[in-house]
C-alpha cells in the first residue's frame, strides 16, 4: 500500500510526461510480460488440462467403446452403449431419483432456508418501530450452518444409524418406541419406496443452514427504513415478507436454486454411504453418480459407465441452459 503514495503525491503532469516518454520507447508494463504470463499460466493450465479437461474429452470417446478397463484392446461399438442405457431399468430408476432430488431438494431447502432466515433477521418482537431479529440469532446461525462444513461421509454414517433398526442402534425407532409411537417404527432403509425420500431429507438437513446464512446476509443488507415504513403502514408479518423481503432477496434465491440443483444432481456420497454401491434394497435408491461408479469399478464396464456419464453431462447442461434462459427472461421483464 505504501507504494501508492509516491505515485499519488508526485505532480500529475510530471508522471504523465514520464509515462509517455517511456511508452514511446517501450512500455515498462510490456517489458518481459509474455515470458511472465507464460510462466504463470503454465502450471495451473497444465494441471487442469491433464487431470480435468482431458478426462472429459476422453470420456465421450470411451462411451462409444466396449472397453472393460482390464485389457488394453477394445472395439468401437457405436451407439450400442446408449441403446443399452435406454433399455436398462436400473438407469431409469437412477434417473427418476435424480429428478426427484432435482425438483424437491431445492424447493424444500430454499423454503426452509428463507423461513428460518426471515425468523432470525426480521422475526423478532415488533416493538416500537425497530424491526429486529430474535434473541440469540447469531448462535442459531452458527448451529444451523455446522452440517455444511461436515464431510458428507460423516453425515451419511450418522444418518445410516439414525434410520437403522433398533437392534443396530437405530435412534429414530428407539425414539418412537420411547414416546409410545411404536406404530411408527419401521425398517426405514429396508423399504424400497422410502429410500430416495430419506436421501432427500438427509440432503435437506445438511444444506438448510447454508441457505439460512446465505439469505441472512442478503436480508441484512435491506435498509431498515423499508421495514419501518411497512410496519407503520400496518403491514402484517406475512405481507412484509411477501412484499418486501422476498423481492429484495430474489436474486440470491435464484443463485441458491442453481447451486442446490447442482448438488441434487450429485448425491453420490449420501447414497453410497447410506445405501451402498447397489443403491439399497432392489437398487431403489440408486442415483446416476453411483451407477457410473458401480459400472466402472465393480462391473468393469468402462464404456458403459462413460455413456451414463455423458447422459449426466447432457442433463446438467440442459438444466444450466434452462435456468439461464428463465433468469434472462425474468430480468427482461423486470427491466
Amino acid at each position, binding site marked *: 500500500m505504501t507504494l501508492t503514495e509516491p505515485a499519488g503525491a508526485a505532480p500529475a503532469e510530471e508522471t504523465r510526461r514520464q509515462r509517455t516518454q517511456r511508452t514511446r520507447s517501450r512500455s515498462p508494463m510490456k517489458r518481459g510480460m509474455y515470458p511472465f504470463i507464460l510462466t504463470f499460466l503454465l502450471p495451473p493450465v497444465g494441471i487442469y488440462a491433464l487431470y*480435468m479437461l482431458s*478426462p472429459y474429452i476422453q*470420456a465421450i470417446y470411451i462411451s462409444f467403446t466396449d472397453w472393460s478397463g482390464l485389457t488394453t484392446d477394445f472395439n468401437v461399438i457405436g451407439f450400442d452403449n446408449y441403446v443399452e442405457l435406454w433399455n436398462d431399468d436400473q438407469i431409469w430408476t437412477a434417473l427418476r431419483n435424480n429428478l426427484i432430488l432435482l425438483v424437491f431438494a431445492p424447493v424444500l431447502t430454499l423454503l426452509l432456508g428463507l423461513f428460518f432466515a426471515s425468523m432470525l433477521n426480521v422475526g423478532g418482537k415488533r416493538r416500537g418501530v425497530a424491526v429486529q431479529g430474535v434473541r440469540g440469532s447469531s448462535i442459531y446461525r452458527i448451529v444451523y450452518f*455446522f452440517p455444511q*462444513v461436515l464431510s458428507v461421509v460423516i453425515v451419511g454414517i450418522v444418518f445410516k444409524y439414525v434410520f437403522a433398526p433398533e*437392534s443396530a442402534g437405530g435412534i429414530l425407532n428407539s425414539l418412537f418406541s420411547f414416546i409410545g409411537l411404536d406404530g411408527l417404527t419401521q425398517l426405514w432403509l429396508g423399504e424400497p419406496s422410502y429410500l430416495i425420500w430419506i436421501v432427500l431429507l438427509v440432503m435437506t438437513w445438511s444444506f438448510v443452514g447454508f441457505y439460512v446464512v446465505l439469505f441472512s446476509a442478503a436480508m441484512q443488507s435491506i435498509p431498515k427504513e423499508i421495514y419501518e415504513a411497512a410496519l407503520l403502514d400496518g403491514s402484517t408479518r406475512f405481507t412484509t415478507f411477501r412484499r418486501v423481503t422476498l423481492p429484495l432477496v430474489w436474486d440470491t434465491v435464484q443463485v441458491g436454486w442453481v447451486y442446490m440443483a447442482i448438488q441434487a444432481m450429485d448425491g453420490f456420497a449420501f447414497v453410497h454411504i447410506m445405501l451402498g454401491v447397489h443403491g439399497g434394497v432392489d437398487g431403489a435408491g440408486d442415483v446416476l453418480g453411483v451407477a457410473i461408479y458401480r459400472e*466402472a469399478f465393480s462391473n468393469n464396464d468402462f464404456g458403459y459407465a462413460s455413456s451414463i456419464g455423458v447422459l449426466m453431462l447432457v442433463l446438467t447442461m440442459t438444466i444450466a441452459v434452462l435456468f439461464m434462459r428463465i433468469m434472462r427472461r425474468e430480468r427482461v421483464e423486470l427491466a
Partner: protein
Amino acid sequence: MSTTTTMTHDHEPDGNGQPPRPVSPRRRTPGVGPGERAISFLNGGFLLFWALVTTLPLLWAMLSSFKTNGEFRTDPMGLPSGLEWDNFARAWSAANIGQYFLNSIIVISMSLTLTMLFGSMGAYVLARYDFPGNRLVYYVFVAGLVLPVFLALVPMFFVVRETGELPLIGPMLGLNSYLSLALVYVAFSMPFTVFFLTAFFRTLPSSVSEAAIMDGCSHFRLFFTIMLPMAKPGIVSLALFNFLGHWNQYVLPLVIMQDGDKRVLAQGLGTLAANTGFRADWTALFAGLVIALLPVLIVYILFQKQVQAGLTGGVLK
C-alpha cells in the same frame, strides 16, 4: 457480517422478562398484540426445533463414541455409563484411522498449497494482463464449474495410472500416490479458485502496480511482494473453502487411492462404515467419526465468520 450480532439485543424487555404493556390504545404501536405475541412464541419454537434437529444426531454420535458396544445396542438413547476411551484406541490403530488421518494431512498440505499458489497465479494473470487468448483461457476454466465430476472419473483413473509409467517422475505419480491425489484435487479446485480470485484481483487498485513497474519492479516481484499480500483477504477465505472441500472429498480418493493403507480420512471412514455391519464394532466407528469431525469443528469454531462468508460469498460472486 460484523453488524449481525449487535442488532439483536437492542430492544429486549427489561430484567423481569415482561414486555411493558401499552398505556393507552392511542399509543399502541402497530403489530403488537396477543396475536403477535403468539406468533413470536411460535417462531421461537420453530427455531429451537430446527436447532435440535441439527444438533441431536451429532450429539448422539458423539455420545455413542463413549459407549460400549453392548450399551450402543441395548440403550441407544441413554448416556454412556463410563467413558470408553478404548473405542478411540481401536479406531485409531485397529481400524487404521490414525493412518488415514496422516494421509489426509499429507495430501492436503500439498494440494492446498498448490491450489492457492497456482490458482492465484493464473487468476492474477487473467485479471490484470491483456493478451490474446485471455478470455478463452478464462472461460475454459470457468466451464469446469458446470461439468459433472462423475463423467471424468473413468478416464481420470487411466490418466493417473498412465502418469505412473512416465520416466523419472513416474514413481512419484500413478495410482495410490499422495502427489497424484493432490494434483487431482488441484485440477478440480481450479475452476472455482480461478473464477473467484480473478474477480478479487480485478478489484485491487491498478495505481500500485503501475507505480511499482515504473520503479523498475519485475512482474514476478510485483506479484509476490505486492499483489499477493494485497489479495490476502480473498485468498484466506478461499483457502478455508478449499480446505473443507479437500478434507471432505470422497469420490476422487475412492477412485485413486485403492490401496488400503493410502486411504484418506473421509474415504477410510466410509469403508469402515461399510464393513462395520459384519464386525459389529459400532462404537469404534463412531469414535473414528468423532476423530474426523474434531478438526473441522475446531476450524469452524475458530473461524466461523470467515467460513460462513467464504462458503456463501463464493456462491454469490
